């Protein structure tokens, strides 16, 4: 048997599995999106009508807008804090293992639990963080964070960022660690200060890690609903209603699978375009 045949044989089980759980459902998704499939009418071909209806649906656009704010907010906050922490961690000589362990611990908490924990900490009736806000003079009464649209969104972004910062931190730190130390020494001999070396050496050389971290963080927060589900379930007044919740509602609430499939295809399309752009940019670097 040729070596390449042996290699192919080894991969067959994996490829068959992937075909069953990815390629087939993907084909099914596209097919469904062209069907009227709502458990009321007989299943019939529906052409592009599901798509037309989705694109004319006000709630769909609202959920898309919320998703962009939510994942954009999370990614920005995660990137800024992750970068600050990675740069700091790369500089220290003592306790680095301790800080690394502490900083990645939130990663251990399941997203759905993270949502519940933040809901509790921010709660106006029992929440410690809300109590602290009243004590430092931020407000007199406890703030009903989940009753106010903008604050509810900020709460969701905080909880999501909390679980995503560790990954960003690790990826950027790995990027910084791979920069040859000679570069910094040479720059310092030339009299460059830390701000200059950060701008001229660190930033350009960790750009790739930052992009990778950004791609993964934004993709994941675009498509996850776990923590929003446990914090607000989309409320108040649909202020945190994201596209994933919209899709799920068409399965469990309205039972209109054709419509839901059309949303699924649109979600896939948006993520693919976004991921292609970033991957292209990473490869170009």
């Amino acid at each position, binding site marked *: 048997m040729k070596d390449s045949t042996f290699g192919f044989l080894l991969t067959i089980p994996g490829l068959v599995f992937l075909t069953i*759980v990815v390629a087939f459902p993907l084909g099914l998704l596209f097919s*469904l999106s062209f069907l009227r499939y709502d458990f009321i009418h007989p299943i019939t071909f529906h052409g592009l009508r599901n798509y037309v209806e989705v694109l004319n649906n006000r709630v769909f656009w609202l959920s898309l807008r919320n998703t962009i704010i939510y994942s954009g907010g999370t990614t920005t906050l995660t990137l800024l804090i992750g970068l600050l922490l990675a740069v700091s961690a790369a500089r220290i000589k003592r306790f680095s*293992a301790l800080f690394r362990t502490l*900083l990645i611990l939130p990663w251990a*908490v399941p997203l759905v639990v993270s949502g519940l924990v933040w809901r*509790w900490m921010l709660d106006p*009736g029992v929440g410690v963080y809300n109590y602290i806000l009243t004590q430092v003079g931020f407000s007199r009464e406890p703030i009903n964070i989940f009753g106010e649209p903008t604050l509810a969104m900020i709460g969701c972004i905080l909880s999501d960022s909390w679980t995503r910062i560790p990954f960003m931190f690790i990826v950027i730190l790995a990027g910084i660690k791979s920069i040859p130390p000679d570069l910094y020494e040479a720059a310092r001999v030339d009299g460059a200060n830390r701000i200059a070396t950060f701008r001229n050496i660190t930033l350009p050389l960790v750009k790739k890690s930052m992009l*990778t971290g950004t791609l993964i963080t934004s993709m994941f927060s675009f498509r996850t609903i776990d923590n929003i589900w446990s914090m607000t379930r989309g409320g108040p007044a649909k202020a945190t209603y994201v596209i994933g919740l919209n899709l799920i509602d068409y*399965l469990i609430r309205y039972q209109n699978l054709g419509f839901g499939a059309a949303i699924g295809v649109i979600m896939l399309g948006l993520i693919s375009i976004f991921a292609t752009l970033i991957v292209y940019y990473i490869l170009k670097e």
Partner: protein
Amino acid sequence: MGLASKLEGIVESEVTPYIVLSVFSAVMVSPIILIFFNSFKTLHEALSWPPTIIPSQPTLEAYVKVINSPVLLTLRNSLIIASGTTFLVLALGLPTAYGISKYSFKGSKFAMLFFLASRIIPPLSLLIPFYIMMTWLKLTNTFQCLIILDTYLAFPLMVWILKAFFDDFERDLIDAALVDGCSRLGAFLRVAIPLSAVGIAAVGIITFLWTWNEFVYAMIFTATEDIAPVTIGIFHFVGDEVIEWNSLSAVGIFTSLPAIIFFIFAQKYIIEGMTKGAIKL
């Protein structure tokens, strides 16, 4: 002089990174510590305002309540689902990654692309097709259903990570085994796998934790407490009238514990695995 030089002084100082890291570590760890303390409060104290941080009369009330509730069963279910998934991911992933890494064939590049593309598909997009497939196969509300779906979630990334580990694996060691009369399959099973144990352990741990944390598929595909994982079970204490925050915190501790233990003891390997998978994107 002025603000700019003051800022430069702060940035240049050797103490600054320690201060930054201390402050952020405190903020990042505080939710975990707060729920840890909260889990030892009585329900009365957990519901009172102003909130306390350290319980005034520490009690195991919340833990007793959790142990006597169906949540204990969901913890067992999580264990079954996560172990089953980890086994399936490794059983499928090891030969796949090894074949692609060490015996590249026509189309192996394409196969890797297939795995990468699978990662980009949002799992929510496939939710409705999976719902129809699982209904056809009469698999809804079974362990098999969640193990298959959770394997789908982890498998593509794990193949990438395993391939990165096998890429670093010395070709000479395999060749030496072949010269000694080992078959190619024997070299894979008896040389490559044991010598890659660290990478395999990392992949196993990451898969286990991912599966342990999974929520959406579990919510859609489980209906009863004898199948549902603990990410569903935790909602047992979220009532319409009142949320039992002390018991909920205790469940939160239970659910986060395996990962916290892994992170403290196997941190190096988990980080290596994750960065390998991310950077070789």
